[in-house]
């Protein structure tokens, strides 16, 4: 309700001015008010500890073509390769323990899955349980098979990032497994593969990798977490300091999971002087497991 009688006298006077003067007066009031607000903020901010801005990003040095430089040798340090969900220590079987004792046990882990639970569809959960029961014989890692994605990232081996012009290569010490990231392409996989088909691009400080074209044969870990050939993984990798990257991935597979889920972990730069990938050609270590049943004469 506007009742001029209740307005302060000064404002009434302003209203009675000619319009240009009125405008100028209002402008002056507005400017003064703004300045006052700004001054107040500066004063109050100066009084606090300088906070990190809401989306703090460490700005890593650039390659010569202006991209964040992720070249180097990196490694995850968690127990996700045993089980990507939070888990307790777990024993193997008596038969295995009789041969290698406590070396056979699974260590505990906080997991890398946001929310802590993989959203399996009911039939898939049943399959996961079966996989877990048969894990020593069926884990693709036991057969020295390729790790797939994202398991490549958290295998207990270092991996090297080599940033080329149109491709970024990631090579694991595990089997020399390769991820070839196409940086200027949106082509799709010609056929299914273990490591999928990866198209990458830069989003500011973040390397975004979109991977499809998987077969259904790899596992996410040693505990039988698995996927179908509908798997779709989107990864976001951002340098967080000179010594670590922040890695996160969204995993989607409507044939296995009721909804997408996210994983995340730091990846640490291997700081040893002259660190390099060595050779881990494990095919021969896996052959007795795979082909032992076809021996003419059983092993003594």
């Amino acid at each position: 309700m506007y009742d001029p009688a209740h307005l302060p006298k000064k404002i009434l006077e302003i209203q009675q001015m000619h319009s240009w003067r009125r405008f100028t007066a209002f402008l002056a009031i507005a400017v003064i008010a703004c300045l006052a607000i700004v001054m107040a903020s500066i004063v109050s901010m100066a009084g606090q500890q300088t906070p990190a801005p809401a989306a703090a990003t460490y700005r890593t040095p650039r390659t010569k073509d202006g991209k964040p430089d992720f070249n180097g040798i990196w490694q995850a340090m968690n127990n996700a390769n045993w089980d990507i969900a939070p888990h307790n220590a777990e024993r193997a079987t008596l038969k295995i323990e009789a041969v290698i004792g406590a070396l056979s046990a699974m260590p505990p882990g906080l997991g890398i899955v946001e929310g802590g639970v993989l959203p399996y569809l009911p039939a898939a959960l049943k399959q996961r349980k079966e996989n877990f029961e048969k894990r020593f014989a069926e884990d693709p890692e036991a057969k020295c098979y390729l790790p797939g994605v994202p398991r490549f990232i958290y295998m207990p081996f270092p991996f090297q990032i080599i940033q080329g012009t149109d491709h970024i290569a990631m090579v694991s010490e595990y089997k020399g497994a390769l991820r070839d990231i196409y940086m200027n392409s949106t082509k799709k996989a010609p056929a299914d593969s273990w490591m999928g088909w990866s198209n990458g691009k830069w989003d500011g400080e973040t390397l975004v990798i979109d991977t499809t074209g998987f077969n259904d044969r790899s596992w996410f870990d040693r505990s039988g977490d698995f996927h179908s050939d509908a798997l779709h993984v989107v990864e976001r990798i951002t340098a967080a300091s000179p010594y670590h990257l922040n890695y996160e991935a969204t995993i989607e597979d409507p044939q296995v999971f009721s909804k997408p889920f996210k994983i995340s972990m730091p990846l640490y730069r291997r700081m040893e002087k002259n660190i390099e990938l060595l050779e881990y050609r494990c095919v021969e270590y896996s052959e007795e497991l795979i082909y032992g049943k076809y021996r003419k004469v059983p092993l003594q």
Partner: protein
Amino acid sequence: MTTDKRRFRMSHKFPVLIAGTLLTAAVVIGQQTPATRTPAAPASAGTSAKAPAPAATAKAPAAAKPWVTPRTPDGQPDLQGYWTNATYAPLERAPANVTANKLFFTKEEYDARVKQAALADEAQTTPGTTGDVHYDFTQFGLDKSQNPFAQDMRTSMITDPPDGRIPAQTAEGQKRGRDRTAAYRTAGGYNQVQDIVLGSRCIIYNPPPGPPMLPQGYNGNYQIIQSRDAVMILFEQIGDIRIIPLDNRPSPPLSVRNTMGISRGHWEGDTLVIETTNFDERPQGRNAALAGISDNFKLIERLKRTGEDTFDYEFTVSDPETFVKPWTASMPFTRIKGPIFEAACHEGNYGIEDTMKGARAADAAAAKKPGQ
């Protein structure tokens, strides 16, 4: 791309078979490439010889724009892409050619060699013979004559010693080679998987990956990805990878060894020089001539871009404890189309399992035979 005579082998005199398949159509349509790329002209055998001097490059016609070494953003010569070193030059000069001091095949001789090889690729095997028990390589485009290769008319890849032959080995080197070959030989037969050759088990392919990088049987292709600090070389067959650091680090101790050795690289002008030591004892990973190498063996490789679609590759074997003198060979690498599809050889190796099942089935059948 200039109109210079290409190192590519142009498609040739064989009847182009039924053009109606999906694939042929796709290839023809797909090859309407931009004007800067000269598509392969059919039925033209006029390609340039490797010039009559070791490791020389083909000469471009005078009218062509001078080619400049392309560089990565770091200023290094750019070796990236997909390549093959397939060629019809033999590693060693045949004794008759040594006697005749014949360094090059004539064009007629060379074309005849290539044609003979292509005929062999295409030759139909006789039904009911062992040779027939195989898929046809040509149907899948795996035969050499259907794939790009570099034209190289030399009678040997070896350029030093001048006779084009691997020098003699020392007695000690020969013995090491014999002993190792015997020690690492697989027993043969199918009683246990460990008796089967390493190549069939997808452990170390044959022809071996080396280095030195010698032409492979099929899928003899490479992919190079290069950063400021490292060069990665992927071998298509089996998917072996070499990573060559460029940061002047020392080699690790001899207690650490790789099938493909441990490499160190640096640039000398526009040449990538790679020195490789620390090879595994096991001889299967490298050419048979190198079975007996000593702990002090050093392989030096030199890679240098020579044209839009080529680089020259030269390697020197240096091991006085094994060879009475060092020897050097070279070959051209030629650009090819990608991609290199995932090898995952061990993962897909149904064949070993099937073969062993077959062997056990044969054993069972033999056991059932009366009177045995």
